[in-house]
C-alpha cells in the first residue's frame, strides 16, 4: 500500500515537472531580442535579413540586428506577407516556438502563440482588419500542412486545419470576399485555389494546377501570378527574381543591382509609372493608415503615400 502511494506521488510529480517543461519551452518565443528599444529609435522590417532592425531617427542610420553572430538567435526569422501590414510571424527554425506579433513604430504585441513547438505560421495575405497565415507542422523527417489560420479584427483567430488537405500553403492574396492561395505540388508545380472566406461553408475551388511559382498578388480584385517568368499587376510588368510587397495602389519591388546592393522601385499600379527609386534600401515600416516608409542604411528614409 505504501509502495503504491510512492508510485502515485512519483507519477504526479513527474507529470507536474513535464507540464512545467513543456509550458516553459512553449513560452520561449524568440521575440525577446527586440525588447528594450532605445528612445528615438523605430522598429522596421529588414526585407533582406528577415529580421527587425532599429532606425536611429536623429542620425538617420539603420542598425541591422546583427543576430547572425549570436548563436541564440541565429535561426530566428520574422516573416511578412506580400501585402504590407503590421502583422508578422516570428519563430526559430531549429527550436520552434512561433508566434504572431503586431509591430508598431516603437512597440510590439504578441497576439497569437503556437500550441506546440513543431507548429509554425507564415503570413500570406493581410489588410487592416483581416489576415491569413499558412500553418506548417514539422516532424522528425517531414513537413506537413497544418491548414490555414484566419484572423479578423472582430473575431480574432480561427483555424481551418483541413482546408488544404496535405498540401502546404505557400502564397496568398485577398481579392474581395475571396482568398486565393497557392499550394506545393512538386518542386516546379503549384496549385492555385479560391476560397470564399465570408461564406466559409463551401470548400476551396481549384483554379489552376499549372503555376510554376507560388507567389500571387491581387489588385482591383484580379489575381496575378508569374507566367513564363513575368507577372502583370495592374499596369506594371515585373520579371521574376525580386522581393515584392503590395499595398493599395503601390507596388514596392526590392531587387539587387549588379553589385548585390538592394534598390527599391516604387510603382503606381494604375499608371504603371515608377514613382521612386531608392538606392541601398533594406527595410520598411507601415504606419497602419496611409504611409509606407522605406529605410536606407545611411541615406535616410523615404515616405510613400499609398492612398
Amino acid at each position, binding site marked *: 500500500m505504501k509502495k503504491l502511494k510512492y508510485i502515485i506521488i512519483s507519477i504526479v510529480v513527474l507529470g507536474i515537472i513535464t507540464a512545467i517543461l513543456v509550458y516553459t519551452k512553449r513560452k520561449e518565443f524568440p521575440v525577446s531580442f527586440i525588447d528594450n528599444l532605445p528612445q528615438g529609435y523605430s522598429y522596421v522590417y529588414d526585407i*533582406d*535579413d*528577415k529580421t527587425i532592425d532599429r532606425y536611429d531617427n536623429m*542620425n538617420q*542610420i539603420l542598425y*541591422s540586428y*546583427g543576430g*547572425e*553572430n549570436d548563436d541564440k538567435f*541565429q*535561426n530566428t*526569422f520574422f*516573416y511578412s506577407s506580400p501585402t504590407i501590414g503590421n502583422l508578422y510571424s516570428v519563430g526559430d*527554425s*531549429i527550436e520552434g516556438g512561433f508566434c504572431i506579433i503586431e509591430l508598431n513604430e516603437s512597440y510590439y504585441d504578441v497576439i497569437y502563440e503556437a500550441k506546440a513547438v513543431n507548429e*509554425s505560421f*507564415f503570413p500570406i495575405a493581410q489588410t487592416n482588419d483581416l489576415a491569413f497565415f*499558412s500553418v*506548417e507542422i*514539422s*516532424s*522528425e*523527417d*517531414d*513537413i506537413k500542412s497544418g491548414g490555414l489560420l484566419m484572423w479578423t479584427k472582430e473575431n480574432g483567430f480561427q483555424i481551418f486545419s483541413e482546408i488544404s488537405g496535405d498540401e*502546404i500553403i*505557400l502564397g496568398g492574396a485577398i481579392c474581395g470576399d475571396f482568398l486565393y492561395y497557392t499550394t*506545393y505540388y512538386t*518542386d*516546379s508545380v503549384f496549385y492555385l485555389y479560391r476560397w470564399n472566406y465570408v461564406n466559409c461553408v463551401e470548400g476551396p475551388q481549384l483554379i489552376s494546377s499549372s503555376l510554376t511559382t507560388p507567389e500571387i498578388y491581387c489588385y482591383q480584385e484580379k489575381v496575378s501570378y508569374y507566367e513564363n517568368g513575368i507577372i502583370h499587376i495592374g499596369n506594371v510588368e515585373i520579371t521574376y527574381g525580386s522581393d515584392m510587397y503590395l499595398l493599395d495602389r503601390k507596388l514596392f519591388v526590392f531587387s*539587387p*543591382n549588379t*553589385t*548585390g*546592393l*538592394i534598390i527599391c522601385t516604387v510603382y503606381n499600379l494604375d499608371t504603371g509609372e515608377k514613382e521612386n527609386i531608392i*538606392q*541601398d534600401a533594406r527595410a520598411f515600416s507601415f504606419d497602419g493608415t496611409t504611409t509606407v516608409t522605406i529605410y536606407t*542604411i*545611411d541615406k535616410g528614409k523615404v515616405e510613400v503615400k499609398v492612398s
Partner: protein
Amino acid sequence: MRKRINKTITVMFLVLTLCFSMNAPAFASLTQTETNKKLSISGTSSTLKAYAAFDRFGSNMGNGKEWDYTGKASIVNAAKAGTLKLTIKGQATLNTSAGISVGGGSSISASTSSSWQTISSSYSQTKSIKKKTGTQSTSDTSNLIVAPRAHYQTNTACITVTAQIKWSNSSKWYKISALA
C-alpha cells in the same frame, strides 16, 4: 638508403604540391583568417555550410585601406529543391563620415560625429538548387574598403558570411554564419 630518402622526398613534394593546388585550408596564406560553420537541418540529411576567408592585415590604397575576402554558401545533400542565399556583410568601426564598401558596392558612411560607430554594408546573391546528393554552392571573392583610414579604428574590420536555405515546399528559412 639514399634511394629511399629520395623517394620519400619526392612523395612529400607531390603531396605538398597537391595540397597547394587544391587550396587546402591547412596551407592557406598565413595572412588570411578562415572560418567554417555548418548546420545540420532537422528532418533531413542536409547540411548548410558557410565559409569566410579574410585578409588579416589588408593593404593601404590611397587614403583608404582594403582587405580581400572570399565568402561561400553551400548545401550538402539537398533533401529537396530550394533557394540557397549567400550574404556577405563587411563591418568596421569608423567616425567622422568615413565610409565602408563591400563587393564594389556604394559606400556606407558613419555620421559626422567623432565618436566611434560600428558601420556595416552587405549584399546578397541567390541560387536555385536541385534535390541531389553532393555539394551545391555559391561564392564570391572581392574586397572590403574603408576610407579615409585616418577615421578607421585599427583591427575592427571583419566580414560575416551567411548561408541561408529555404526548401520549395516550405516558407521556413535556415541560416548559418561564419565570421572572419
